[in-house]
């Protein structure tokens, strides 16, 4: 009777350990802080150069925040799996009998946490550089959107990152595989953030259905990913 809860507890515990391992690796290397975050801010500045109009920037700021997130995510995902494949760490984890579902959940959550941190920087950048409005009720929508979208992106990023890990030419393949899949997240997160920023005359309350879409997306890819990840990396 107690077998199922115990194994579930073990799974969650393992996932937590894997997540902390990834986050510790990040804290030690500071790649996110020193390289990825500046990269994403540069993207935001380049968008401003390309569009060259304050009104347009304010209008499209939500889309730009999420495009910058997607591009930065490619770098973070590659980093997440470069750490694993460099010294055969992924093989070592599997030989050690780590459940691939826990591995998937742990790595996804670590990725999600990093993306959340990145989005805090990006939303702040949009606030100052693009001059968007952000009121407390809007901030709540944006916060929930960031958390849900980053969960979804974490799951997808880990799934497809695992697929491309260890293969020749993965650097060029990952964007091709990943970007079409994250299109629904881009649509949902952009609309929800638009409501939060009140850009284009949107109401804050219009954002919640889009957050719901993000939640559905995150749940689907969380469940499917934990099933599919094992066969993908099992070689």
């Amino acid at each position: 009777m107690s077998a199922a809860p115990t194994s579930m507890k073990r799974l969650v515990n393992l996932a937590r350990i894997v997540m902390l391992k990834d986050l510790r690796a990040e804290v030690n290397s500071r790649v996110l802080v020193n390289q990825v975050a500046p990269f994403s801010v540069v993207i935001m500045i380049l968008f401003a150069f390309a569009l060259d109009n304050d009104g347009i920037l304010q209008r499209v700021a939500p889309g730009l925040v999420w495009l910058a997130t997607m591009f930065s995510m490619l770098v973070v995902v590659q980093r997440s799996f470069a750490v694993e494949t460099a010294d055969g760490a992924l093989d070592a984890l599997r030989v050690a009998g780590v459940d691939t579902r826990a591995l998937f959940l742990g790595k996804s959550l670590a990725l999600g946490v990093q993306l959340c941190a990145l989005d805090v920087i990006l939303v702040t950048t949009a606030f100052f550089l693009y001059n968007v409005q952000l009121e407390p009720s809007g901030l709540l929508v944006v916060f929930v959107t960031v958390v849900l979208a980053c969960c979804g992106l974490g799951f997808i990023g880990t799934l497809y990152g695992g697929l491309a890990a260890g293969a020749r030419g993965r650097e060029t393949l990952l964007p091709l595989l990943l970007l079409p899949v994250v299109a629904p997240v881009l649509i949902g997160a952009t609309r929800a953030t638009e409501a939060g920023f009140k850009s284009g005359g949107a109401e804050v309350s219009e954002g919640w259905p889009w957050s719901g879409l993000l939640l559905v997306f995150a749940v689907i890819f969380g469940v499917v990913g934990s099933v599919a990840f094992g066969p993908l990396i099992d070689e």
Partner: protein
Amino acid sequence: MSATSTPTGTRATRVLGFATLALTVWLIVFGLFVSAEDVVQGSTVRIMYVHVPSIWVAYVAFALTAVVSAVYLSGKNRSLAWDRVAGASAEIGVLFVAISLITGSLWGRLTWGTYWVWDARLTSTAFLFITYIGYLAVRGLGGTFRQRARRSAVLALLAVLEIPLVHFSVVIWRSLHQESTVANSGTDVELDGLMLFTLFLGIVTFTMLFVWMVLHRQRGLALQDAVDSHGLDVAIEQRRQEAEVR
């Protein structure tokens, strides 16, 4: 035919090939000459006899890829033949999506005055195209045949999940941000009997063409795998043995 080449055809594929060829001629005659012009679109409507069958074949191809991938992953006897059929089918599917997108945008230019509209169906089709290009890229990643088969089978099943999600989100994206597009008005067209028949003929012809292409291509892939696995050494050894026999 020289002794060194192995044909991918059999008697059955030759019969199928000739039947397809005959139907293609019939389709050309009916599509270009016999069927009537459209009241509104004129001769432009004839693009339909290529456009609709192309996207039909693409859907059939990707469905086949998904089904044989599932069979590969679930079966106890994990024959690589399933994997090769999946790969062959996806390759041909990508080709036909491309044909469908090109003919569609030409048709759009003639009837709507623009090559592309951000309509939900068009956008989803573009995603379908890109997704399966990614699938083919994963097949080309290298590694053992088993690795390729497993990776691509999982990816094919993920694509089945992803495509409806993308389609659904694009539909609600468009429904909130754009009034009904010109693309929607095109779906109410009533087809007369001969046009409907020609369209049906097109679908049958293209489906047979697809079957013929998959049969050849999967055999081609099998030969490719055989070449890759045996390598040049085996071939040289065989040539040497042939020389000794003579």
